[in-house]
Structures are given as structure tokens and as C-alpha cells.
């Protein structure tokens, strides 16, 4: 079992509120990724769940038990730190066994558990080495192994991949995903990297200023962002935002640079249209929803980013096939995929009825 729930949990230092009245329900076996810009409180939230930071308001429950003021070890969670936090004076075996030793687990049992975990993580030949003799990826695996042997009800990961180089990060990402499938345990994973969030999560929680902006499956967040912040934060390259105004009925006026028709609720007053670069297409100048002049382009291999200056709509990023023929300075038209764009009102909230 491993359900974790936060009920109006809050954290303040004096007058400064880091986390405000946060509600979050995590099911047993779920992989939840918390993302947000630095300073949004995501690490603090994780440390509150771990018991490393005091929770000043509200409650934290694990399997229905109130652990708000329980010590870290009583919560039966394990944590993998950003810096791995391996004990430098202990061998891999001792690092992994430290918690078991403190819990007075019989040494034969401990040995078996350590060796089983080492087997899973391909650490067996390294058991008697010291952390300084290991590579970054190996250290990372030891940190995970230390978490596994204690058979916790849930795993907490605090930006575990940010100290690895790009290639290794992809490998470890796959390994963590595999580990989650094998163990089936609850995992909470904090990162600022939205690619990690998209690839690993059953559910993504996007945070800003100590609050949850949106939570849901990666696809939902990508396709139906609840607000401007999530729309901009999820997805790379960023979503284009085009200032617009409702003309009449379902007709949308793009600041006088063009218009398009979109189904929308009667009372809605959209002010911005959000369209991802891959949902835009370059067409002949007269056949698009709006038009502009190619200002620059970036070749990315499989495709290219074309930056089109479109008058009052500003600079629009269009993802185009790499072999699209055009020249800088050329006039082009832009076609918008109406069915996959979002509308936002003046307060930045998404206009709901739109699919």
C-alpha cells in the first residue's frame, strides 16, 4: 500500500508562505511528477512529504495515517537526492545497508536484500567500492538501491537526473520507468525538466508560487492546458500566443491580421489564442489564416523552426518539415489547426468548452 494525501497542507517561514493550502491525492502505485519553475515550492513540497521540512498547516496522510508531525523514518518513505547524498566513507554495500543496520535488521536478511537490490540495479560487481570510485550513473543507481532495500511504501525523487550528462539522463530515465513497472510502488518525482515529466509521469502536477496550477495526464496537460502558465510551461518549443478578440458568433479576429472560426461558448471573451508550433503550417501568403514575413529559421534536423514576423501578432514560431522551400524575407501565410488550439480569457484561464 502507498497512498499519500495532502489536505490543505501549507508551509510558511514567518510571514512568507512557500506552500499554500495544497490538496493532493496520490494513489497506490501511481507515478506522480511535480514540475514547475525554480522557486515554485516543488522541492519544499517533496521534503514536507519526506518529513525533512515541518508542515506548518494542514495534514499529510500516508495510507490514511496522519504523519504530519512524524519523523522521516516513521513515514516509511525513501528518498533519492539530487546530489545522491551517498556516505563517502562507506562502501556501496554499507551505504545500501545503513538503514537496515539502524533498523536492527538481522545481518543475513540485510545481506540478502542488498544483494537482491544490487542484482536489479546491476551493482553486484561494485558492492565493495566506495562512492568516489563510481561514475555518476553508478552513484545514481546506488542511491536508488539504498531506497529499494528498505522496501518503502513510496519513493521520493528530488531532481535525481540533473547532475548527469544528457545521454546518461535518457538511460536513467528509462531505468526509473522500468523500476516503477517492476516494483509497482508509489513514486513522487520532482523536476524542472518538462521532458522528464512528460515521459515518466502517470500524472503531472504543475506548480507555481506554492500552488498547483493544473494536474492530469501528460497528454491532457499538453493538449488542454487549464491556463496560460501551464500552456507556456509544458511543451518545447513554447506555445505561440496570438492576441485576438471575438468578432461575432464564432468568428475570431486576430488583431486585424486575419481571422478564423472556432466553436466557443456564448459568454466567452477570449483575448489570446494559443497554438503550438507543430499545429501551425506554412502556406501560400493568400491562403492562410494570417500572413507575415520569414525573419529567421533554425534547422533542427528532423524539422525546422521558422520565425515569421506577423505584424501586430508579433513573432510566430512555426514548425515545418526540414525540406520546406522558402527564403528569409519571403512573404508566407500561416494556417492554424483550429481543432488543436486553445483560447484564453483576460485572466489567463483557458476557455473550457473548446475541445
Amino acid at each position, binding site marked *: 500500500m502507498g497512498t499519500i494525501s495532502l489536505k490543505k497542507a501549507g508551509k510558511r*517561514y514567518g510571514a512568507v508562505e512557500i506552500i499554500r493550502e495544497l490538496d493532493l491525492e496520490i494513489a497506490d502505485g501511481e507515478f506522480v511528477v511535480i514540475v514547475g519553475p525554480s522557486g515554485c515550492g516543488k*522541492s*519544499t513540497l517533496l*521534503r514536507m512529504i519526506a*518529513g*525533512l*521540512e*515541518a*508542515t506548518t498547516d494542514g495534514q499529510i496522510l500516508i495510507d490514511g495515517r496522519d504523519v504530519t*508531525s512524524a*519523523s522521516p523514518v516513521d513515514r516509511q518513505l525513501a528518498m533519492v537526492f539530487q546530489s545522491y547524498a551517498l556516505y563517502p566513507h562507506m562502501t556501496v554495500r554499507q551505504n545500501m545497508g545503513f538503514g537496515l543496520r539502524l533498523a536492527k535488521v538481522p545481518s543475513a536478511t540485510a545481506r540478502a536484500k542488498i544483494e537482491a537490490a544490487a542484482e536489479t540495479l546491476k551493482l553486484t560487481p561494485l558492492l565493495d567500492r566506495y562512492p568516489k570510485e563510481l561514475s555518476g550513473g553508478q552513484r545514481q543507481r546506488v542511491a536508488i538501491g539504498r531506497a529499494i532495500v528498505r522496501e518503502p511504501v513510496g519513493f521520493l525523487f528530488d531532481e535525481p537526473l540533473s547532475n548527469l550528462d544528457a545521454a546518461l539522463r535518457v538511460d536513467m530515465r528509462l531505468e526509473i520507468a522500468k523500476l516503477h513497472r517492476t516494483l509497482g510502488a508509489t513514486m513522487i518525482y520532482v523536476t524542472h525538466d518538462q521532458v522528464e515529466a512528460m515521459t515518466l509521469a502517470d500524472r503531472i502536477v504543475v506548480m507555481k508560487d506554492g500552488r498547483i496550477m493544473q494536474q492530469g495526464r501528460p497528454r491532457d496537460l499538453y493538449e488542454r492546458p487549464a491556463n496560460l502558465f501551464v500552456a507556456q510551461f509544458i511543451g518545447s518549443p513554447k506555445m505561440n500566443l496570438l492576441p485576438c478578440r471575438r468578432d461575432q458568433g464564432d468568428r475570431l479576429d486576430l488583431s486585424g491580421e486575419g481571422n478564423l472560426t472556432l466553436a466557443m461558448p456564448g459568454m466567452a471573451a477570449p483575448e489570446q489564442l494559443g497554438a503550438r508550433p507543430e499545429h501551425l503550417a506554412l502556406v501560400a501568403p493568400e491562403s492562410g489564416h494570417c500572413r507575415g514575413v520569414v525573419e529567421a529559421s533554425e534547422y533542427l534536423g528532423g524539422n525546422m523552426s521558422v520565425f515569421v514576423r506577423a505584424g501586430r501578432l508579433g513573432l510566430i514560431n512555426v514548425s515545418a518539415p526540414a525540406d520546406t522551400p522558402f527564403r528569409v524575407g519571403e512573404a508566407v501565410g500561416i494556417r492554424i489547426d483550429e481543432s488543436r488550439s486553445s483560447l484564453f480569457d483576460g485572466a489567463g484561464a483557458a476557455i473550457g468548452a473548446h475541445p
Partner: protein
Amino acid sequence: MTIARPQTNAPEFRLLATPLVLFLLVFLGFPALVNLIYSVSEVTFETLRQPRFTGLANFLSVWSDAAFWQASWFSLRFGLLTAVLECLLGLFLAIFLSPLIERRSWLMAILMLPLMVAPALVGLMYRLVLHEFVGPVPYYLWTYFGASISFLGPGSAFWTLVVVETLQWTPFTLLLFYMAYQAIPSEIAEASAMDGARSLQRLWFIELPMMGPTIAAALLIRFIDGFRVFDNVYVLTGSGPGGSTASLSIYIYEAFFKQGAIGKAVAASVVLFVASFAVLYGLNALASRRKGAKR
């Protein structure tokens, strides 16, 4: 990231700090209390347990004691002079010798050796070094210059002590400055070289300013140690000639052990105690204000 403020540990941490606090209370708190009581009491070795309250009489007798002011003046002058001399000499040696020491760190070990010798023993050694019959310094002066001076006589004793103290503690400033000098990133030296700075300009405009905090710290530490000097002065000149080389520490020691003037000695201690902590906390506050301002 924010530093952890774990919730459940404050009592545990307090427990860990407790032995030290208790130790300090017994060995410093209690004496401080005794100091305060005796400083406003009339007390002799016979009446230690029945001090009689006399108000500020002890402080007045300290205040009107010419020897106290002479000792204060000695400590102040001695502290300032030795601190400045040690820093100048240390700075010169650190920078001038750094090309040699960089490659052979054992040279530093030789220069550091005086720091390992007890100041009291160094004082005793100088009794030999400066002795008019068996001391090498007067001997060489006679041999090569045909004259020598009375190093510990009136007029010269103060300067002799300054030299003795400076020679023992210059290695300290030398070491500090050498480390600060080595810690200057080589990119900065290279950048200033690209800017066309010659080595003297580099020293004056780049390196010395970067060593500024270390120099200030060294001046302060050496002033404090010079101000409270006891060991080497005590064994070398006692307080003579004529009390001219009594530091404040020696003044208090003699008032207590030689004159039995407990009240006066304790009152002088309290004055020194309050003055020291006032100055030190003032400096701390100043330093942290500055740190805050920089941020």
C-alpha cells in the same frame, strides 16, 4: 535551496550542545560572577568568603592608579606597533618569497617554526641571546662594531620587546598572507596582464586590494594578541625596568600575586572584560552589517 529546518530535532540538538554550555557556565560563568562580586567588595586572602561591599572603591583605586594607565598605554602601543610591523614584514616576505615557496613548501615549514615554540620559552631564550657576557648579539656587536647597548635597560627594553614579539609572530602573518596571495585566481593576474598592468601595478591595484580582508583580519588578531601579551614579556623583563614594560595582563597578575590587592586586580579584570567584549561585539556587528550591505 533553503537550508533544512527539520521539525523534530531541536531538542536533540540542544542536548548535543549542553555539555559545552555547562562546561562554560562552570568554568567561565562562575568566575565571571566572582569577578563581579569581588570587584565591588573589599576582600583579602583571609576574608575570601566574607567579601564586604564597598561600591565602586576598587574601580576608583584602579582609575587613580598611575601604574594602570602606564600598563594600558604600554599594551596599546605594544599591540599597535607589533601588529603593524608584523603585517608589513609578513606581507613583504609572503609576496617576495612566494615564487620560492610555491615550488618547495618545506621552506614554509622552516619559516613557521617560531610559531611552535612557547612564547615563554622564546622569552627565556632571548635572555640568553641578549645576555651581556654569553649572548651572541652583544658579542657580535662588540666584535664587529666595538660597542653594544643594554637591550633590556630603560629606554631600549620596550623596543627590544617589540622586536622579540615581531620576530616570533611574523611567521603567522606571513602564512596568512601567503595563503591569501595564493588564493587569488590566476585568471585575474592574467586578465590584468592583458590589460597592460606591470607587476608593481598589479600588486597595488589588484592583489593588495584582494588581500584586504585578510590584512585587516591579521592586523586585528595580532593587535589583540599584542595587547594582551604576558608570557614573553613577563619572563624577559618582568615588568621592569621601573614598571615600564608592564602590560595590562602583567599589571593584573602583579596586583593579585605580588601585592595581594585582590579587589583592585579583579576590578581591572572587569574593566578589561567589558572593554574587550564591547570592542569585539562592536567589530562583529560592523562586519556583519558590511556583509549584509554587500548583498
